[in-house]
């Protein structure tokens, strides 16, 4: 299996506050990796560094073999980033938005059309795609922006709290879409979440974070066994309190 992401001793601080300390991990092609942690644990900072929005103080990460420090332009061609609570351009229709994003990733019209068509199919919004985004519900917008994230078939999709603020049914739809895209397109996913159940049901592996460090890393089952817990919430609580 090919390594989609290899994080090597990544660190980032804001003034005196160490947001991320010496974090290393790998994600394979088609694998879903979940970052779990409380507010301020450093999840978003890791995601933003991998999305080339923030520069690491030290360490590096290779995405499809490209360094985020040395070659951020090449990295951007291999990734797709979905920020927490990301919106879309409200005056555009769903269709136009997907076409616009496809235009950012592909030069040929044919590729752009195919990409946008895939996005339309993934989001499953049907006729609503012809409506302006400002008429969409939160769940519809989330499905649209998730579709635009995965329709480019990136090597690595970086999702920050992908189901944050969504109801159960919409959350389930989003998780299934992530799972399907990982299997069908071989896209590796790195997602952050507060919802342990989300990580348990969606991710192949995950890590528990506190104060910028990984406390534990493994499959959901391995994490449960490591902390002698029945649920991931329990494992998380034990991990954080014992640290």
């Amino acid at each position, binding site marked *: 299996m090919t390594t989609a992401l290899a994080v090597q001793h990544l660190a980032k601080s804001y003034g005196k506050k160490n947001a991320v300390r010496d974090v290393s991990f790998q994600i394979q092609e088609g694998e879903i990796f979940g970052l779990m942690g409380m*507010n301020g644990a450093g999840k978003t900072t890791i995601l*933003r560094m991998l999305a*080339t*929005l*923030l*520069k690491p103080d030290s360490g590096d990460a290779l995405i499809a073999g490209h360094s985020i420090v040395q070659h951020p332009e090449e990295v951007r061609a291999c990734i797709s980033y979905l*920020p927490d*609570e990301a919106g879309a351009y409200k005056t555009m229709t769903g269709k136009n938005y997907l076409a616009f994003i496809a235009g950012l990733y592909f030069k040929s019209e044919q590729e752009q059309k195919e990409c946008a068509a895939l996005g339309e199919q993934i989001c499953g919004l049907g006729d609503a795609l012809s409506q302006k985004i400002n008429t969409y519900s939160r769940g519809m917008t989330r499905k649209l922006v998730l579709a*635009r994230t995965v329709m480019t078939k990136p090597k690595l999709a970086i999702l920050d709290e992908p189901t944050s603020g969504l109801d159960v049914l919409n959350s389930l739809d989003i998780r299934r879409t992530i799972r399907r895209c990982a299997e069908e397109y071989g896209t590796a996913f790195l997602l952050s979440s507060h919802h342990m159940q989300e990580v348990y049901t969606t991710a192949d592996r995950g890590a528990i974070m506190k104060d910028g460090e990984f406390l534990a890393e493994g499959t959901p089952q391995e994490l449960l066994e490591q902390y002698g817990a029945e649920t991931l919430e329990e494992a998380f609580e034990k991990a954080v309190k014992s640290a």
Partner: protein
Amino acid sequence: MKNLLKKELSELFNPQMLMGLLVSFILIVMLGFVMTSSVSESLEATGEVHIIDMDQTGFTQQITDYLEEQGYTVKKISENSGNPENPAYETILKEQNWKEAVVLPSGLMDQLLFEHTSCELHAVRVLETTSTVSVMETGESSAELVRDAISGLLMKNLIGESMAYLENPVSFASYTIANGKTVRANSFSLVSSMAMFDQLMPLILFMLIILTSQTIITAIGSEKTDKTLETLLSSPMPRSVILGAKMLSSLIVAVVYAAVYGIGFATSLLFTVDKTAENVNIGEAFSEILSTKQAMQTLGLQISGIGWVGVILQLILTIGIALVVSTILGGFVEDAKGSQTASLPIVILTMFPYILSMVSDIRNMDLPVRILLYLIPFTHTFTATGCLRFGQTGIFFGGLLYQAVFLAGMIFFALKLYQSDILFVHSLGKKSAKSKLIKR
């Protein structure tokens, strides 16, 4: 109630508001300082009466004494020579460093006291600015004061003469000096015709700068709120292209606005100038009538074709600077709400030279104040037409060059900014982006 009031006040008195308040305070103090100095100079000038005495009789001495009794300082020079058809007033006023004067012609006493006929005096004014406020702030001119003095003296000396004659014993011929040339023309009429462009153009420019600035800062603020900026900046599209598209779109909007304003303005200008040319007879007491256009041509106040090209280039550079600086400021905005605070520096840096150019003549201010003002790139645009009309082409082209260099520097800085992570670490918001990141 107490809790609610405390909550409301703590929301209203936020760091942005206090920063805005502080900057506004500094601006008002600085503006007041510059204005006070300008007004003091004009007040000093209004206490003086400048007379060119070509009659040199006891009567002209009585005029001087009369004015001095009224509390005015009379500065008088005696002139014997001079071609009345082509008087070299520019030389005399330049030597005396006067901005205006009244000429008492040879034979004044004979005409007024013995022949009892109305006499024609020359009212001379140096034109250095097209700011109507600046031209008018000299207040009561020497000519008006001298007329009142003559009228007062005649009432004492010519008892029984008709009141109509005693009240208006003299008429005036206006002379305007500009660019070292003198022409029989009324300076107020000339300024009025030029002010249509020289004062309305800065107003339109002022509005355009504020408009484009707020448009782009709000757009970037909205992109930050919706997190669409992060989507764009993490895409393979080069950041220079993203930045260029953002600025170009705002420029197009600004050009559309400018075109609409400009067409409306040009239409009104053409109509007004035509009317002025038809109706205004410059040089009230003369049979020779000069049109505004002729008078401006003679004085060299018209802007050449190259000058207009420079003015247009300067407008483009000015809007370009506003766009790039706004893009930089937009980068520090946390969300759409912070846009207004972020645009404050642009508003101040535009409003300051704009107001000063309206009420005073920046080109003739004290050197330190001028240097300070010329460091603001927008100032050059507000003084552009004045420089071109009054022969200060060096200052004009220097300003143009400065603006071009400033713009290039700002573009370089903007590109660096949008390639760095400062955008996501620093902000002008209540809570910095950094502290928000740390929280997560």
